[in-house]
C-alpha cells in the first residue's frame, strides 16, 4: 500500500500538481515507528486529526498562540501571544474567561507560557513585561514576580520567562529566553531565587581539546563560547517529576528529572533517528499523560513523537505543513498537551490554531499494554499485546511485551522466539541463558559422554591420519600444491622462518594465495550467516556477497600496492609478488579461526561476551603479528622498520583514497558545469 502512496510523487512532474502532499483523499501523513535497529517501519494511524480550534466560526481568533495548559476539569488555557492575553476555554472549546486583557497591573504583553495549579491559580510567563503574572481562576490579577534579587545573578542578567511550571511545594521552574543555565527556580511564596535546575551539559569533543591545546588566545576568542543547548520547554507530572525538552543538544533532547536533577530517561537520541542534511532536532515541547507516556513535538519536521515513560519510541506521526493547508500537518508547532481522554492538543503559532488529535484504538491499546508491562504486570498485559498484534503483526513492542510475559511464567523457549521477533538482544540473551541452563542440567551426563568420546575419537583419528598423511606426503610431497600447503603450516608454527622461506625458497605461490583469499571470503560470509543473534542482532541477513568481495579485494589491493611502493622507497627487498603472497598468507589465522569462533558464539550469552571478544581479538592479533613479520622478512627490515613501514603504508593508503575522492568529486563538478551551460543555452536558444 505504500506503493499506492508513492504514485503521488510522479504527479509532481506530470499531473500539474504543485506540491507533494501525500494524500490520496486520506490522512495527510504516514504514521511509523522505529524498530530496535533504528529503521522506520509503517504502522496504522495512531492519532487522527479531529478538528482545529481558532480558525472555525466564532469569536475566537488566535494571533500567534504560544502555549497551552489543560486543567483537571478539561479546561483549556491558551496563550494568545500577539493578542496579549490568555484565553480559557471550556471542554466544548468555548471561550469562558480571558486573563490579562484589561488595562492595569495585570495587562499582559506578548506572553508565551502558562501554568495552572491544582487550586486554580494561573501563572503566566509575561515575556514582554519580563515577569511572571499571577491570576485567580476568575481572572483577577493577584501579583507579579520580577527578576529576583540575588547575589548569584549579575546585574545584566536578562529575565525573560517563556515557559513555566509550579510544583506542589510552590517552587516555580522557569524556562528563560536563551537561558542555557537551565531552569530558574523561584519560590512563589517570597519570590526568592532558589538556584538553577536541569542544565544541559556543554558538548565537549576531542576536537575542542585539540583546539584548546594548539590555538592561540586570539584564535580561541574567535571560536565563540561553547554554550550548552538551551531548554525549550518544561512540564510536570502528578508525581512532581520535571520533564524538559531541549534544543541544540546531541542527546537527551527529552529529560525526565527527579528532585536531585538526575535524568531518568538515559542518554539517548530522541526524534528522527537519521537526519537529512541541514536538519536538526528542534523539540519545542513535550507533555506527559497520567500513566507517564510522553509526547513531544519537533518544530522543524512538524513530527509528533509518542514515547513510553522510559523514553522508548511507540510511534511518530504528523509532519510539516509546507503550504498544503491540511488538517494534521503542522506549520509552527509551539506547544503540546494531552487531556484526560488521551487527546493531544498542538498549538501552532504559524496557523494561529490549536489542533486536536484523537488516539486510535491501536494507539490506546499499545499505550495501555505498555503501561502494564512497565508496571511489571506482564501477564495482564499479554492479552492486550495479543490484540495489538492482531491489529499489526509487525509491531515489535508487542512481541517484546508478550516475550516478557512468557519469561515471567518461565516459558523460556517461547519467550526467546518473541524476543527474537522483537529484536530484543538483552532479553533474548537472558531467556537463552535459561534455556541453556536447562539443557545442561537435563543433559549433563550426555554432554560429558559426548565430550569424552569425541576427545578419544580425535586422538584416534589423528594417529591414523598421521600415518596416512605421511604416506600421502611421500607420494605427492613434491607436487606444487603440497609444497605450498606445507609452507603454510610451517609459517603458522614458525612465522619468522616461514616468511623467510616464502621469500627465498619459493615454497609458496600465487595459486595458494588465491585459495587463501577465497577461503577468507567464504569464511567471512559463512560466519556472518552463522553468527549468533546475540552478537549480531538482525532480522534478515544483510550480508551482500558482492559487497564483501569488493571490500575485501579493494582493501587487499590497496594494502599490497601501497606496501610495495612504500617498501620500495625504503629499500625493501621484496618483489611485488612476494608482497601479494606474503600478505595473503598472513591472513590465514583469521581465515581459519573466524568461523569456529562464530560457532562458539552461538553457545554464549551476552554476559559472556568477553569470551567472544577475547577470541576475536586474539585471532586479529595473531594476524596482525603475521603482517609485521611478513613485512619484516619479505623486505628484510628489522622489526622497528617493519612497524614504521606498516604505519606509513596505512597513511599512504588513506591519502590515496582521499585523492581519489577529491578527483571524482571535481569531475562531477566539472560535468555539472558543462551540463548547466548546455541546458542554459538550450533554453535560451
Amino acid at each position: 500500500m505504500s506503493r499506492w502512496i508513492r504514485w503521488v510523487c510522479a504527479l509532481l512532474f506530470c499531473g500539474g500538481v504543485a506540491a507533494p502532499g501525500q494524500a490520496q483523499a486520506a490522512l495527510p501523513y504516514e504514521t511509523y515507528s522505529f524498530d530496535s535497529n533504528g529503521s522506520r517501519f509503517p504502522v496504522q494511524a495512531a492519532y487522527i486529526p479531529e478538528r482545529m480550534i481558532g480558525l472555525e466560526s466564532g469569536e475566537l481568533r488566535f494571533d500567534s498562540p504560544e502555549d497551552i495548559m489543560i486543567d483537571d476539569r478539561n479546561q483549556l488555557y491558551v496563550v494568545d501571544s500577539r493578542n496579549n492575553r490568555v484565553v480559557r476555554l471550556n471542554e466544548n472549546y468555548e471561550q469562558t474567561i480571558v486573563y490579562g486583557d484589561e488595562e492595569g497591573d495585570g495587562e499582559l504583553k506578548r506572553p508565551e507560557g502558562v501554568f495552572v495549579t491544582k487550586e486554580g491559580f494561573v501563572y503566566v510567563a509575561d515575556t514582554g513585561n519580563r515577569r511572571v503574572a499571577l491570576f485567580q481562576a476568575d481572572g483577577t490579577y493577584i501579583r507579579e514576580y520580577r527578576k529576583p534579587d540575588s547575589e548569584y545573578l549579575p546585574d545584566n542578567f536578562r529575565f525573560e520567562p517563556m515557559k513555566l511550571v509550579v510544583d506542589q511545594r510552590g517552587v516555580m521552574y522557569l524556562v528563560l529566553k536563551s537561558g542555557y543555565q537551565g531552569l530558574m527556580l523561584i519560590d512563589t511564596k517570597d519570590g526568592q531565587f532558589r538556584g538553577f535546575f536541569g542544565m544541559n551539559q556543554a558538548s565537549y569533543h576531542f576536537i575542542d581539546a585539540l583546539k584548546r591545546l594548539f590555538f592561540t588566545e586570539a584564535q580561541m576568542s574567535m571560536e565563540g563560547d561553547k554554550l550548552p543547548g538551551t531548554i525549550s520547554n518544561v512540564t510536570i507530572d502528578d508525581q512532581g517529576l520535571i520533564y524538559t525538552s531541549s534544543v541544540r543538544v546531541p542527546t537527551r533532547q527529552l529529560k525526565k528529572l527527579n528532585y536531585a536533577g538526575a535524568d531518568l530517561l538515559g542518554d539517548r537520541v530522541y526524534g528522527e533517528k537519521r537526519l537529512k542534511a541541514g536538519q536538526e532536532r528542534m523539540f519545542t515541547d513535550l507533555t506527559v499523560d497520567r500513566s507517564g507516556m510522553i509526547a513531544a513535538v519537533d518544530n522543524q519536521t512538524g513530527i509528533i513523537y509518542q514515547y513510553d515513560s522510559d523514553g522508548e519510541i511507540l510511534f511518530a506521526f504528523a509532519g510539516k505543513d509546507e503550504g498544503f493547508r491540511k488538517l494534521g500537518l503542522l506549520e509552527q508547532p509551539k506547544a503540546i498537551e494531552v487531556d484526560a481522554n488521551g487527546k493531544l492538543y498542538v498549538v501552532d503559532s504559524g496557523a494561529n490554531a490549536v489542533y486536536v488529535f484523537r488516539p486510535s484504538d491501536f494507539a490506546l491499546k499499545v499505550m495501555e499494554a505498555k503501561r502494564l508491562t512497565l508496571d511489571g504486570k506482564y501477564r495482564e498485559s499479554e492479552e492486550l499485546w495479543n490484540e495489538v498484534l492482531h491489529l499489526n503483526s509487525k509491531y515489535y513492542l508487542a512481541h517484546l511485551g508478550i516475550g516478557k510475559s512468557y519469561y515471567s511464567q518461565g516459558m523460556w523457549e517461547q519467550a526467546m522466539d518473541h524476543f527474537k521477533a522483537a529484536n530484543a538482544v538483552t532479553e533474548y540473551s537472558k531467556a537463552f541463558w535459561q534455556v541453556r541452563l536447562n539443557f545442561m542440567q537435563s543433559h549433563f551426563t550426555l554432554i560429558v559422554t559426548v565430550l569424552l568420546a569425541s576427545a578419544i575419537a580425535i586422538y584416534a583419528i589423528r594417529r591414523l591420519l598421521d600415518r596416512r598423511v605421511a604416506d600421502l606426503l611421500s607420494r605427492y610431497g613434491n607436487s606444487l600444491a603440497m609444497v605450498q600447503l606445507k609452507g603454510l603450516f610451517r609459517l603458522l608454527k614458525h612465522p619468522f622462518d616461514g616468511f623467510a622461506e616464502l621469500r627465498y625458497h619459493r615454497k609458496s605461490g600465487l595459486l595458494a594465495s588465491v585459495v587463501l583469499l577465497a577461503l577468507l571470503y567464504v569464511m567471512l560470509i559463512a560466519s556472518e550467516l552463522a553468527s549468533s543473534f546475540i552478537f549480531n542482532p538482525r532480522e534478515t541477513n544483510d550480508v551482500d556477497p558482492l559487497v564483501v568481495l569488493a571490500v575485501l579485494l579493494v582493501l587487499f589491493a590497496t594494502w599490497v600496492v601501497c606496501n610495495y611502493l612504500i617498501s620500495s622507497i625504503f629499500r625493501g627487498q621484496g618483489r611485488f609478488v612476494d608482497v601479494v603472497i606474503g600478505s595473503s598468507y598472513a591472513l590465514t589465522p583469521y581465515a581459519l579461526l573466524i568461523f569456529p569462533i562464530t560457532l562458539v558464539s552461538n553457545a554464549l550469552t551476552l554476559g559472556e561476551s568477553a569470551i567472544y571478544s577475547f577470541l576475536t581479538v586474539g585471532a586479529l592479533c595473531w594476524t596482525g603479528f603475521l603482517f609485521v613479520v611478513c613485512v619484516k622478512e619479505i623486505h628484510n627490515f628489522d622489526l622497528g622498520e617493519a612497524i614504521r613501514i606498516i604505519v606509513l603504508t596505512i597513511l599512504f593508503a588513506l591519502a590515496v583514497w582521499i585523492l581519489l575522492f577529491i578527483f571524482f568529486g571535481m569531475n562531477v563538478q566539472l560535468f555539472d558545469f558543462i551540463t548547466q551551460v548546455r541546458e542554459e543555452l538550450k533554453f535560451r536558444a
Partner: protein
Amino acid sequence: MRRWNRSWLAAGILLLVILIIAAIGLLRQEVRARDMPSLSEQTALRNTGPAGASLTVGKTFTPIGENDRIALAVNAAGQIRITDRGGRHEWFSNPQADALALEEVKGYWRNMLESPFVIEYLDLKGISTEVITASSADLDAAISFHELKGGVEIVFDLRKINIRFSYLVRLDDDHLEVSIPYDRIVESGDTRLVSLWVMPMFGAMQGATHTGYMFVPDGIGALIPFDPTTHYSYSYSSRSIYGDDVLYPVFGMASGEKAFVGIIDEGEFTAEIAATPGGMYTTFNWVTPQFVYRENYFKLTSLFGNGFQVFQEEKAKEDRRIRYYFLSGDDSNYAGMARAYRSYLMEVKGLERRAEASYPLDLYVMGGDREKALIGKKLVPVTTFDQAGQMVRSLAEAGVGPIDVTYRGWENNGYLQDTPGRFPPSKALGGAEGLAELARQVHSLDGKLYLADNFAVAYSSSNGFNPKNDAIRDYNGKVISDGLGLGIAEYFVQPYLSWHYLQDSFIKFRDLNVDGLYHEGIGKVVLSDESPSRPIPRKETAAVFKAMLADTSHRLGEARADHGNAYALPYVSHIGRLPFDTSYDMLANFKVPFYPIALHGLVSYSGIPLNLQDEARTGFLNTLEYGAWPAYLLTHDDPAALKHTLSDSIYSSRFEEWREQAITQYSELKSAIGTLGNQFIEDHRELGQGVYETVYEDGTSVIVNYTRQSYHAGDREILPENYSIVRGEGRG
C-alpha cells in the same frame, strides 16, 4: 610501417564496434515502434466555425433565449442571468447591485467581483516572469456579442494585453452550457495566457446575508460553509483534477432554496477547482473552475537540482465546456447536486443502472512479494492459490456468498516485481494450473476471480523495458523514476505501450479462465508524457486508459479499477478502495458522501479493506452509510513475513485471525443493505453531529450514529457507534 598498419587496424575495429552498437540501437528503436492505433484524433480540437452576426446588448439584462425550464439573459458587461420557470429563482454570473451595496472593497477586487472572468497571464516584455492576475475592467476589455444557436457568443477582447477569447453560452434543456473553444483564443501580443477562471463569481454569495455552503470535489466530497464571523487567510484549491485528491470535476454552491452545480464536461484534464471563502478578499464566497493553459515547472539546469521556474511554451490544446445545473427547493443541497451529477453520468457518459442488486464480499488476496536474498532476491509467498481456494471454501461454508476474489501478487516473482512482464503465474504459488484450478473452485461456489494488475508501471529495466525509450518523462524531459527500495526503480510506462502490453496479455489471461482484471493503476493516476519527440497530454493518456478498460471488459468480461476517477466510470463494473475520506483540507473539512450518492446503483464500490482501517468501527459504519461492499484483504500466512518486501504496510491480514469477523460483518451488512445494490440513493443528510441518514429510492432509511452517545430520531433510537434501518415500502 607495420606500426602504422596496426594503428589503422585498431581504429577500424573501433569504428566497426561503434557501428554495430549504433545499429543495435536503431534496431531496438524499430522494435519499439508500436502498432497501437493513435487516439489523438479522439481528443482532437473542434472547429468552431465563424462567429455569427453581431448582436446589440444593453446595459441591463437583455433576454437571449429560453426553453421550458430556464431563461437566459446577458448584459453589456458580459454578465449572465438565469431565471427558472415562473421566475421564482435567479442565478447571476456576478453579484448584483443589492449585494454589492454591502461590499466595502474597492478597486482591484471590486473589478473582479464585476468581471465575467479572471485571467492570469505573463508579460514577456516584463523584467520578471511574474504571473499577473487581472479582470475585465483592468484590461480594457471590449465585449461584443454574436448570434449563436440556442444562445450567444460573448467575445472578450482584452485590448491592454492583446488577448482575445470567447464564451459560447447556450441553453440546453435543464442546463446552461458555457464553452471556451481553443480556436477562439488569440494571443497577438507579447503576453501569454496562463490560466482562465470562467465566471468565477457565478452565484457568489455573502455569509452575512446567506447561510449555505460551497461544494468542492475533495475526495468523497466536501463542503465549505459560509461563515459570517471568520476572516480566513487562505482559500481552497483542488489542485489537478484526477490528481491527488480529486476524482470528479464537479463544484457547486447552495443556499436556502436555490443551488447550482457545475460539471466540467470538457477540458478538465488541465483544470482545477478553486473556492474562496468570504472574508478573504471580499465578503463573497465564490467557487469556480480554473482552466490552466500553461503549467509552470522547475526548469533544471544542474545535476544538483539548481534551476528556475518557467512556464510551458505551448498552451494546452483543450476545448473547455462547463455545464451548470440549477437546483431549487428540495434539490438545493449536496444530495441534489449529486443527483444532478448522476443524471449527467447516465445521459452524457452512458452509465446504466446495475442489472442486479448483488452484494458480494469483496475479497482481496495477497500472493507474495520479493525480498532480498543472499544472492539476488527471493519470493516470499504468503498465500498460495491452493490456500486461497481453502479460504474461499471456508468462507462459503460459513454462509458467505457470493465472493468476488481479487488476487494481488499472483505474478511471476510476486506483486508487480516482474512488470512489464507478469506471466507465468508464480510457480511458488501453484503456477498456471494452480490459478486455473482456483478459478474453477471459485466459480463452483458462485464466486468470481479477478487478477489485480498494474499496466501503468514497470519495475526496473527488465523484460524488454528500456526506460530511455519506454518510460514517461517530465517537463524537463527526464525519465520519471522512483526508487522504491530493494534496488527497485519504478517507471511509468508510456500509455500506448501500456495498451500494447495489455493487448499482448489477453490470451494468457483468457487461458487462466479469470472473470476480469482489477486495474490498480489506470483508474487512478493519469500522467502526461513530456517526451520531447512525442508528448502525450493527460487527455490522450486518459483516452488510452479508457480504451484499455473497454478492451479488458470486452476481451475478459469485466474491468474493475482502483480509486475510480470519473473518466473510468463508463468502463468499469466495480471500484475498489474508493476514497471514503477527504484530503483533510483545513477549509473544506466538512465531509459529505457526494460521490457515493452519485454512483450508488450505477457502479458498485468498496472502501479500504475492513481489516486495514485505522478505526475499525468507523470503517464498518462508513460501509453502511455509503452503501458500499465490504472488502477484506487477507493472506494465509502472517503478513509480518512481508516486512522486508515492498508490501510492508499490510499490517494484519492472516485469514485465521480475521475469518470470524469477516463472516459476521459480511452477514450483518448483507442483511442490512444487501438488497439495495441497484437502487439510487435519494437523499442524505446530517441529523445531528456525527449522525447521518441515507435514504434510498424505495424509502429505506439507514441512520448511522458515529458518536459515543445514543441518538433519538423520532421513535428510532440509534445506539452509540451503531445504526438503524427502516425498510421502505417499495420503489418510490
